């Protein structure tokens, strides 16, 4: 049983993530009164890319060549550390800081890969990505820290087990920290209002401009990793702050309930994202730090309230 659970745990993020992207794109199309691509389109895109040749810039070094594997690998590692459907699968890898910094390692190499080909867009994309991720990191750590103090552990996989279900007193700090984490999610996954994942304007891109040079398998891995990242942050958002339905044992029924409740909750996050991205405009670049400051203040208040 445990092996089976581990297999589900490890495969969940990479297998489900493209579906999530398909869901968001489909919903956005609906809001624009279009039918949009099928939910499975992201899988087709990836599969197609795996079967294409690659053209790599002659200016690029091994960093460019290896970054996709690191970016993808990092999301698989982190994906396996999450409280996806149960709080019983714990590894020492699930440490809050280990997760945050492992994800940062992926960003580090992705930003370097953006600069590596020497295209002006890649460079400015890296600069923007690092600007945002540099100032968002403090909020990322502290919003999860709120829950960590409540549950008495920084191991995110088992955090939910430490939260007593009926602890109404903690609702306010949790909601505040959740709000802060939502801003972190948007920033870290290059969504609105930080970045426009659909844009075809090379001058406004953040994440996409680092990918302009990639092709074939490496592009597939980079896009897959981005989808994984979105799912990772969504799972963190729903299962750390609202671990309703998550299994605390390894019984078949509770595991099934855990999986379905997570899917449902993540779907809600994606729906909200789709609506958000259809109804607001992207922010000006230099207004984004204000948003991150809001997240930071929310966190400080939340942690202060916990203790």
């Amino acid at each position: 049983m445990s092996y089976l659970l581990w297999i589900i745990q490890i495969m969940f993020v990479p297998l489900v993530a493209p579906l999530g992207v398909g869901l968001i794109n489909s919903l956005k199309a609906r809001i624009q009164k279009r039918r949009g691509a099928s939910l499975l389109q992201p899988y087709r895109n990836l599969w197609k890319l795996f079967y294409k040749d690659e053209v790599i810039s002659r200016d690029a070094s091994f960093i460019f060549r290896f970054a996709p594997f690191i970016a993808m690998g990092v999301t698989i590692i982190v994906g396996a550390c999450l409280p996806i459907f149960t709080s019983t699968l714990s590894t020492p890898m699930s440490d809050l800081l280990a997760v945050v910094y492992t994800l940062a390692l992926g960003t580090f190499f992705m930003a370097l890969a953006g600069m590596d080909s020497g295209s002006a867009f890649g460079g400015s994309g890296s600069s923007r990505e690092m600007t945002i991720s540099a100032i968002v990191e403090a909020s990322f750590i502290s919003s999860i820290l709120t829950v960590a103090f409540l549950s008495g552990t920084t191991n995110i996989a088992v955090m939910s087990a430490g939260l007593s279900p009926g602890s109404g007193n903690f609702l306010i700090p949790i909601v505040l920290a959740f709000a802060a984490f939502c801003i972190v999610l948007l920033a870290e996954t290059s969504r609105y209002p930080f970045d426009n994942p659909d844009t075809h304007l090379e001058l406004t891109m953040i994440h996409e401009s680092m990918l302009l040079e990639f092709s074939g398998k490496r592009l597939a891995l980079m896009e897959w990793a981005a989808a994984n990242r979105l799912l990772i942050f969504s799972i963190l958002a729903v299962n750390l702050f609202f671990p309703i339905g998550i299994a605390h044992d390894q019984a078949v029924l509770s595991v099934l309930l855990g999986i379905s409740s997570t899917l449902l909750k993540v779907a809600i996050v994606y729906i909200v994202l789709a609506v958000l991205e259809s109804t607001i405009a992207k922010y000006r670049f230099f207004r984004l730090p204000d948003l991150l400051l809001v997240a930071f203040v929310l966190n400080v208040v939340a942690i202060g309230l916990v203790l």
Partner: protein
Amino acid sequence: MQQLPELEVIGSALQDNVRRLFKGSLAIRQIDTGSDNATEQELAALTNAYYDIERFGIHFVPSPRHADMLLVTGPVTRNMAEALKRAYDATPHPKLVVAVGDDAIDGGIYKGSYAVLDGVSQVIPVDYQIAGDPPSPLVIMQSLLAILDGAKKAPKQKGQS
């Protein structure tokens, strides 16, 4: 939304072909090599709510690195020839090149002019053509369908023996 019935028919046939040839995902990079902007407008219209080409598995991409198909419009001006060549080289195999519009096919009304090179095929190898000045979105979709119908197998990798 008022839909054309024929669009659905063309669309689903197109989708089948995209599945057959491109694993269900056809990425198009449009390149304007000196067109008058009419064809661009019609190509851009493919993504609007009427045609919504995305639902058939076809999407436009920002970089030739990501593309399976180059849609080239315009008679290829002298000033754009080099850029077109580079875009072609930047596109990984397998790739299709389609010249869209009369001007792109052979220079159209501009044929012979000092400032153009008389069509895309003078600069890079062209696989297919879509006629019209400009071809309407529906014509473009019909032509794409005809093109993909004609393509028996996934496009071969040129230069590979």
